């Protein structure tokens, strides 16, 4: 029974990772940028949610919408102010990564100054749970599962059916050729960063109920998301989501033999295992090696 409960909890956390990983993978596949600042976008979404719901007393769905918008704006701003100029200057691939880490650090710092470094919780009572077959599911688990199902399906449809989706896929495949066909890289990028950042915001809303919001949650979340992306196979978006669930699951199961403080090390061990045995991930799509 304990293992089953760990599985449930792990999948709940995994859903959150899946959102962040999917957003990151979307951006990485479309632009080739290792957008580590995604962690700051995530954190901002969480704080926006907290501000809306706790400080401004808005209803939760509205608060979530506020968070999604705030994150989307921030993500798009990073693309326009940082990555686009770097592309225009034909900078090295590593430069955008370092700039991204810079934005992540700066973002965390600003959030820490504005909101303080203590963990902010959405509510003071513990989460309500329901019991299903003797297992406890809290509302975060349920909401995460439902949202994941709905939103991931929607994105899959979007990518396959819509013109926007086709543009993204064309661009991921072959940026130069796409431009020849008139697909505007700027537009695609804006949409991709907006969408990816929005997904991160949803994850932040979920996590704020679970473990609260702290400014430095970005680094750790980004690392976990990246491992999820690699586990799933970097070039495959559903893989990123699946990777998120898997990493969450493994992390949850690790609580059985190990105590909670080894969780991050577990994630790292998963990463090393995959890098050694199957770097192309479960679904077999390697990380692209982008050169300047």
């Amino acid at each position, binding site marked *: 029974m304990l293992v089953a409960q760990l599985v449930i909890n792990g999948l709940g956390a995994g859903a959150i990772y899946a959102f962040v990983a999917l957003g990151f993978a979307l951006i990485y596949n479309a632009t080739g940028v290792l957008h580590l600042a995604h962690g700051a976008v995530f954190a901002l979404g969480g704080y926006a949610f907290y501000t809306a719901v706790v400080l401004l007393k808005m209803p939760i769905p509205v608060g979530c919408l506020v968070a999604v918008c705030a994150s989307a704006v921030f993500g798009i701003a990073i693309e326009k102010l940082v990555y686009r100029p770097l592309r225009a200057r034909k900078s090295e691939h590593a430069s955008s990564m370092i700039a991204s880490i810079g934005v992540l*650090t700066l973002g965390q710092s600003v959030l820490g100054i504005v909101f303080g470094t203590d963990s902010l919780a959405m509510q003071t009572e513990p989460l309500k749970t329901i019991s299903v077959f003797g297992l406890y599911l809290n509302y975060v688990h349920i909401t995460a599962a439902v949202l994941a199902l709905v939103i991931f399906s929607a994105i899959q449809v979007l990518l396959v059916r819509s013109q926007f989706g086709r543009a993204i896929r064309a661009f991921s495949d072959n940026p130069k050729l796409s431009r020849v066909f008139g697909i505007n890289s700027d537009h695609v990028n804006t949409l991709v960063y907006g969408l990816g950042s929005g997904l991160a915001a949803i994850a932040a809303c979920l996590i704020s109920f679970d473990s609260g919001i702290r400014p430095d949650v970005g680094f750790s979340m980004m690392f976990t998301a*990246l491992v999820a992306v690699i586990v799933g196979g970097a070039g495959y978006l559903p893989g990123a989501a699946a990777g998120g669930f898997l990493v969450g699951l493994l992390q949850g199961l690790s609580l059985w033999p190990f105590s909670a403080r080894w969780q991050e090390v577990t994630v790292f061990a998963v990463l090393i295992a995959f890098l050694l045995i199957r770097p192309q991930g479960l679904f077999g799509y390697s990380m692209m090696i982008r050169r300047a």
Partner: protein
Amino acid sequence: MNYLLHVATVILLYAGLVASLNLLIGHAGILSFAHASFYGIGAYVTAMLTVYAGWDWLPAVAAAVVATAAIAFLIGVPTLRLGGDYFILALFGFQLIVVDVILNLDDVTNGPFGIRGIPRPSVSDYGLASGWPFLIGTAVVTGVVFLIVRRIVTSPLGGKLHAIRDDETVAAALGINVARTKTMIFTVAAALAAVIGGMTAFYFRFVEANAFNSEVMILLLAMAFVGGTRSLWGAVAGPTILVLFPEIFRFIGPVGVDLAKVQQGLYGLLLVLLMLFRPLGLIRPRERDSQ
């Protein structure tokens, strides 16, 4: 006067660290996000051996270097042979978890309390107590690090590193074993960082995990890029600027601002601005590689 000696010593320590980081980033093209963790492992092993096992300072540092190099090698072998962004991520992860591991293994490392009472080294009965003697000792150590880096860079090995940095595929087609060379230089840089780690342990006589975390890594990156990652002068200039600036701020800056919180943000902002406007650093290196 003591204060100036302190600032100078700190700058020298960082300079040695940045020089070893430059070897990776500027010369081999390896963006290592794990450098601060090797710095920390060197410091911690030195501390544990001198404080808990009563070792002398020199064998302790030597053992710390060997241990750190071994760990770097073990991490480097599986990750460096994977191209592209994989090893960046693996090193990013390693940096994050090393702090975790140090804090969690509290039987060995005393966890979040750190290790205190690290003895100062003494050279033939002449103790390197604070002040001038230690500064000179640090200058010597950093000088040796600089010498090693310079010799590597200007040797045929340096040519191989530059080739790998510029175009790995072509480098391999010229007979360079890219994976082995990268692993080797990664290990060397980690060993150099461990030496500085040992000196740091001796200087502050106290080590704790958060002195070697990802925030410190960001600071090292900022120092490296401010000075320019290909120049030894840069390895001095970067730390000088980034150590002196907050100190000046402390005297004349606005009251009530928590400097520590702001500093990290400024380092991040600095990295962004450098990448956008001055990717070669504030100190322009000579155009061609020296040789």
